[in-house]
Every structure is written in structure tokens, then in C-alpha cells.
């Protein structure tokens, strides 16, 4: 067996293990470890090779976890858990309603606006949907909006949280592909806003045409301005996080910590109890360890792939395909859409990127390629950022598609009177909106790349 054969065989075993429900982090670590044992046994004999592999695998959990850039993750996760207690949702929704309610479908427009705003303190799409299902749906129903539309707006609006910074999934992408965490986070901002704008356009269009989602009028300017102070803490947090990244005033970890600190203070001032703080911390710790385990587990497998030379081979395979680079890219994105229907977004990214990312970079013409010589018309670094946002958007799309679009189930779970099929049906226009968004991001990469370029 050549190292490459071993690599291929172990990748097959990994797929089987993941399919039969072995926890992804450990399935990957298992495959990597066994792969290393076979690899080194072939080279050094089993007696020595076993220990070489054991010691090599044993360095990875610590070595790969103890990386400064990853320290931003728990701070982002904590912000998300605290933001709910700080009561940001209600105030944001109230302000959005008063300012934007006059449009056709005004309540739904306000909801999208508020979810986008909340996304700027929350890193998790599902939690955002859960929180807004409580705040926004009752008011939309009271205003005469259909259950289908009210629920779908919340499910779709929730997906914005992973694009608009802070976003845990973008941090993980940045670290896996060795790009600047700050740039990736900044890069998510405009596409998130772009996505929200397309949602709003679709809502306004449909509401104006069908006339079943009445505008909310009658707010005076005084009432509008009165709704502003309540949103100031969230605006402050967003400004601090955004400026810290954009102007480099603080590292992502520092900015995330400062954001979490401010949200904590506001939450405590709003009457969050110590017990609730403990719970938020407990949940943050659980999610953090889950992500770290996934990262080092998969990196054990990636280390083995490095010895087996598999990423190089896959790269050569992709480049040798007879499709054009654009066709290949679209096929890869479609594959992510399918995979995302059955897998958790973070697990999907960590598992596939080590092999897929180098291939995409090679399609574009290599890491160091200039915009002029590249297939997609952008430098290697820009391509890395662009692809990251596209992949995350694909993963988010799967949160509102059957069979297991989690956001729809969560909304339906908070509102048992709305069956999940209704939510899925209501999401069809937003699915169309997301496809348009992805098309827009493919056609106009500048939406993604312009802010990170302005940074440096």
C-alpha cells in the first residue's frame, strides 16, 4: 500500500463511521490515529511505528487547541448567551417596528431588521430564531399577518447571525484556512446586510402584491425617537466590536471579551440573576468544549492526511476536471447545500475544508495568485475570504430547508400552534432570496472583499 492508498481507505472508513452516528470529532480522531499507525508501521515496522503514531497523535490535541486566535471563540459564544438576558431583542424589535412599520409588510420588515441587529451580538443562528419567535411572532399575528409568514420571517432572519459578526463559524473557517480572523469577520458584514436587504425586498414585494401583511402606521416622530435609547447598549457593543476589528484597536479576543463584558454589565443591570449567569457560563463552556474537540479531533485526521499526501492529490483531481473553474465552484457549493441538509454546519465545514479548500484555491490559481492571473478575478487571499462567506451562506441556507432545517423546527417548537410544514412553506420566498443572494455574491465578489481590503 502506498501512503495515498492508506489515505483513501481511511477517508472511506471515516465516512462510514460518521454515517453510522459515531460522534464526528472522535470518528475523525480515530481515523487519523489508525491511519498514522498504518502509515508509520509501513515505514518503521509495527513495533516502532505504533509508538511514533501514538506520540504524534498525542501532541495534536494540546498543540492545536492552545492557539491564541482560537481564544476568541468562547468570548463570542458567551456574548450570544448573555445577549438574550440583556433584553436586547425586545428593544430592537420595538425600534425597528416604529421606524420601518410604514412599509408594506412593515412588521416583517422590522423583524428582519431587528434580527440583523441582534445578529451583531449573537453568534448563533438557531438561538436568534428561538429568541425572536417569542418576541416578534405574537405581534405579527396580532397585526393580522399569517402564521406562515410570521414564522418564516423569524426562521430566515435567524440565519443572519452567522454572517454578521461576531460569528463563531467564521472564526473557525479563518483558523482552518489560516486567514486573518478579523478580516473574515469584517467580510461577513456586508453580505449579511445584503442578505437582509434582499429579504426585505422580497417581503415588501410579496406584501404589496398580496396585500395581506398590512403596514403599521401611526407612530409619531416622538415615539420613534423614544425607542432609540433602549437600543443604545446594543449599538455600543456593535460599534465596539466592529471598530476594534476594522481599525485594529484590539485583537479579536480582546474585542470579543470587551463586548461580552459590556453585555454582561447590561444584563446584570437588567436584572439577570447569578443563577442565570451561571447557566449562561455553563452552556458557553459546553459549546466551547464541543467546538474545540471537533477542531482537534479533525486535525488529528488532517495530520494523517498530511503524511498521506491526500490534499495534494484531491487538489490535482479537482484541477484536472474538464469543467471550467466557475462550474466546478458552483458544483462544490451545491454539494455543500446537499451535505448541509444532513449535517451540522460547523461539523460539515471542519470535516470538508482541509481537502476542499486547497482545491478551491488551486482552481483560482494558487494562494499567491494575483487578481489579474486568477480564474475568479481575485487574489488568493480575497478568494479565501470570498469562498468562506459563500460556504457559510450555503450552510445557513440549510437551516430553512427540509428535511431538518433546524431554524424552522425551533420556531415551530416555540409556537406549537404553527406546524413545521407551514414554516417550511413560508420559507420558500426566503429560500429564493438566499439563492439570489448567493448569485449576487458570486457575480459581485466585491460585496465580500471590499471591507477586508479597506482594512489593510
Amino acid at each position, binding site marked *: 500500500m502506498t501512503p495515498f492508498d492508506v489515505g483513501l481507505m481511511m477517508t472511506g472508513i471515516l465516512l462510514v463511521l460518521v454515517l453510522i452516528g459515531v460522534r464526528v470529532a472522535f470518528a475523525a480522531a480515530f481515523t487519523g490515529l489508525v491511519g498514522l499507525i498504518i502509515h508509520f508501521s509501513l515505514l518503521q515496522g509495527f513495533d516502532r511505528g505504533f509508538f511514533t503514531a501514538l506520540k504524534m497523535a498525542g501532541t495534536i490535541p494540546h498543540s492545536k487547541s492552545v492557539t491564541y486566535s482560537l481564544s476568541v471563540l468562547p468570548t463570542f459564544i458567551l456574548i450570544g448567551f448573555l445577549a438574550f438576558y440583556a433584553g436586547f431583542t425586545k428593544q430592537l424589535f420595538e425600534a425597528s417596528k416604529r421606524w420601518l412599520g410604514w412599509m408594506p409588510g412593515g412588521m416583517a420588515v422590522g423583524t428582519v431588521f431587528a434580527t440583523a441587529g441582534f445578529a451583531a451580538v449573537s453568534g448563533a443562528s438557531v438561538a436568534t430564531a428561538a429568541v425572536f419567535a417569542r418576541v416578534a411572532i405574537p405581534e405579527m399575528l396580532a397585526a393580522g399577518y399569517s402564521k406562515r409568514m410570521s414564522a418564516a420571517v423569524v426562521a430566515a432572519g435567524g440565519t443572519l447571525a452567522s454572517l454578521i459578526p461576531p460569528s463563531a463559524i467564521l472564526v473557525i473557517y479563518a483558523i482552518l484556512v489560516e486567514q486573518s480572523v478579523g478580516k473574515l469577520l469584517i467580510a461577513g458584514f456586508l453580505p449579511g446586510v445584503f442578505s437582509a436587504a434582499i429579504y426585505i425586498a422580497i417581503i415588501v414585494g410579496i406584501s404589496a402584491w398580496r396585500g395581506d401583511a398590512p403596514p403599521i402606521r401611526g407612530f409619531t416622530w416622538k415615539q420613534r425617537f423614544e425607542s432609540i435609547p433602549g437600543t443604545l447598549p446594543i449599538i455600543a457593543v456593535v460599534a465596539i466590536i466592529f471598530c476594534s476589528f476594522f481599525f485594529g484597536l484590539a485583537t479579536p479576543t480582546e474585542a470579543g471579551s470587551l463586548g461580552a463584558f459590556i453585555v454582561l454589565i447590561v444584563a446584570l443591570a437588567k436584572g439577570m440573576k447569578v443563577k442565570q449567569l451561571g447557566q449562561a457560563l455553563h452552556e458557553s463552556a459546553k459549546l466551547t468544549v464541543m467546538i474545540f474537540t471537533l477542531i482537534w479531533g479533525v486535525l488529528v485526521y488532517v495530520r494523517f492526511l*498530511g503524511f498521506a499526501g491526500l490534499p495534494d492529490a484531491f487538489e490535482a483531481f479537482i484541477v484536472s476536471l474538464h469543467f471550467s473553474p466557475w462550474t466546478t465552484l458552483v458544483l462544490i457549493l451545491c454539494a455543500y447545500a446537499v451535505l448541509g441538509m444532513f449535517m451540522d454546519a460547523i461539523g460539515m465545514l471542519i470535516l470538508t475544508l482541509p481537502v476542499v479548500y486547497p482545491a478551491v484555491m488551486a482552481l483560482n490559481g494558487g494562494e499567491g495568485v494575483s487578481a489579474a492571473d486568477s480564474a475568479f478575478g481575485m487574489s488568493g487571499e480575497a478568494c479565501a475570504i470570498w469562498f468562506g462567506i459563500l460556504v457559510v451562506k450555503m450552510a445557513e441556507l440549510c437551516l430553512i430547508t427540509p428535511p431538518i432545517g433546524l431554524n424552522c423546527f425551533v420556531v415551530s417548537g416555540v409556537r406549537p400552534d404553527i406546524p413545521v410544514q407551514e414554516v417550511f412553506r413560508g420559507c420558500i420566498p426566503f429560500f429564493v432570496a438566499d439563492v439570489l443572494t448567493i448569485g449576487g455574491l458570486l457575480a459581485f465578489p466585491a460585496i465580500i472583499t471590499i471591507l477586508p481590503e479597506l482594512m489593510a
Partner: protein
Amino acid sequence: ADVTWNVSLWGKRRAFTENVEKLAEEVAARTDGKFELKLQYGEALSKSRENLDGISFGAFEMAQICASYHPDKNPSLTVLELPFLGVEDLETESRVAMELYKQPAVVQDMARWNATLLMPTPMPQYNFAGKGDAPTKITDFDGMRVRALGGIGSLMEAVGAVPTSVTASETFQAIDSGTVRAASFAPHAHLSFKTVEASNWWTKNLNPGTVQCPVVMSTDAYNALPEEFKTALNEAVAPALDHYIKVYDDTYAKWWKTLEERNITQIEYSAEELAAFAEKAGPIHDAWVKEQSAAGLPAQELLDFVKAQIKG
């Protein structure tokens, strides 16, 4: 190839790795391709900090390391990282390192990792680039936040500066935004981390110190080589280092050009100012000797040996 060695490297191919590239080329040429050094970039085989670990248990046969990334893994090598040793060029750096590698204390130190030192990656002095008023006197550094690690950090602390934690890749933004005012790197790193683009001054002749980044190989793997491969490897060292220094000259050419294009003030310190800096370095040398002697290293001998070698 009859024998293939994996070489663990971090980052991409760059001036820093040209000695290894040339080494591989020379070895292949001298053995008709029968002895292959397979260069593996991007930490594919190990994180840079764990290259010595990988060597110790035989995961790969050769690696580039930097002593300062893990000072207590290789205390004997850190003698060349002490501030203000007075090394001015890469040839001296290279010559002194090769002599140091033969010292029994150093050989023993590395033997704990089953590692043998093959050749240095001579690094230029870590001069500071920074933004704002140019520090022309030692007192100008008082209160200045700087990115400087290890021995250079201690030296800066001794002159009143405030060493501040910043990762290399975040240094450009840190200087640009005022998180730190200056950073200490070799010229190629000032170029690749773009710190030079945020700076308006550079300490041309401060020469505060540098880092020690040898290429090491597995002692077992080396001993297992046929005699002619060993010879080929050893004979390849001199051309590899010559090539490296030549490539680095190109980097310097680019460096001088960048300094001029960007109108960067090149600070040249007077002999008195340099002496004042050197005075601050004295206690740091003493502290190193004291600490390493206590840990069982013939530290004073090593330091004296290095100083004598630098004088030539």
C-alpha cells in the same frame, strides 16, 4: 530514491527556508537522486513549536526550529539570542553558530531530543520599526509600548519600554492603531508582516539581538545513513548557506529600496548611545548565566566562547 527524509517546515517557501531548499537540491545532485529530502511546508507534519518533539519520536527526520519559540527545550542555543552580542552580519552569525553547534554542552542539550544540529538559518538583527517620533536616544524608549519577545523584550524593559503581547500577524494593525509603537523583526519579516508600511522610522544600527533558528535532524536517522549519504549531506551545508546568504542579499536590496520609497528615517545611534544600551544588556547576560548554570549548563563558558568567536 533509496532514502527519503521528511522535512517539517512552517509557513510557505520564503527567504527563511532557502537554505533547506538548496540543501535538498545539493543532496539530490550529489547522490544522483538516491537520497531525497522531501520538504513539507505549512506545518503539515507538525506545528513549529513541536518540531523537536516530532524529531524525538521519529515522525520525521529533519526540521527547522527556532530556539526562542521554546527556550527551555534548548537552553544552550539561547546563548546566541542574548541581546547585544555585537553580531553585525549573516556571515558572522552563521560562522559562530556552526562553531557553537560543536560544543559538547550544546550537543548534549540537543541529544535529549535525539536531535543533531546540521546548520543554522542565520537571521539578521531584530531592529525596530515604529511610528511616531523617532527614538534617537536611549531615553526616548521610556514608556514606549513595543512588540519584542524574550531577550530583546527584557532589554527593552531595562531601558523603560513596555513590552506588549501582539501576535506577529496582528503587528501591522497594532502599530497602525497605536496599540504598540514599534516592533522588532528581521527585515524580511518587517516586509511580510507589513509593519514597515505602518512605520516611519527604523533603528538601523541598534542591532539588539536576533533569534537562533537551526536545521536539526534525527540522530538515529543520521546514524542509519550510508556513509556516502552522510558525506553528501555534510558537503551540502556550505553551498546551502552560501545560497541562503545570497538570497538574503536580495531581501536586503528590497528592504533598502522600501525604506527609501517610504521615506523611513534610518536611525543611526552614536557610539555613546550604543554603549548605554550595551550597559543595560550586561545584567541580562549575567542573569542568563546564573539561571542556566543553576540548571547545569556551563553557561559562562558558552557565553565566553560565543563572544570570542564573534570577535573572530
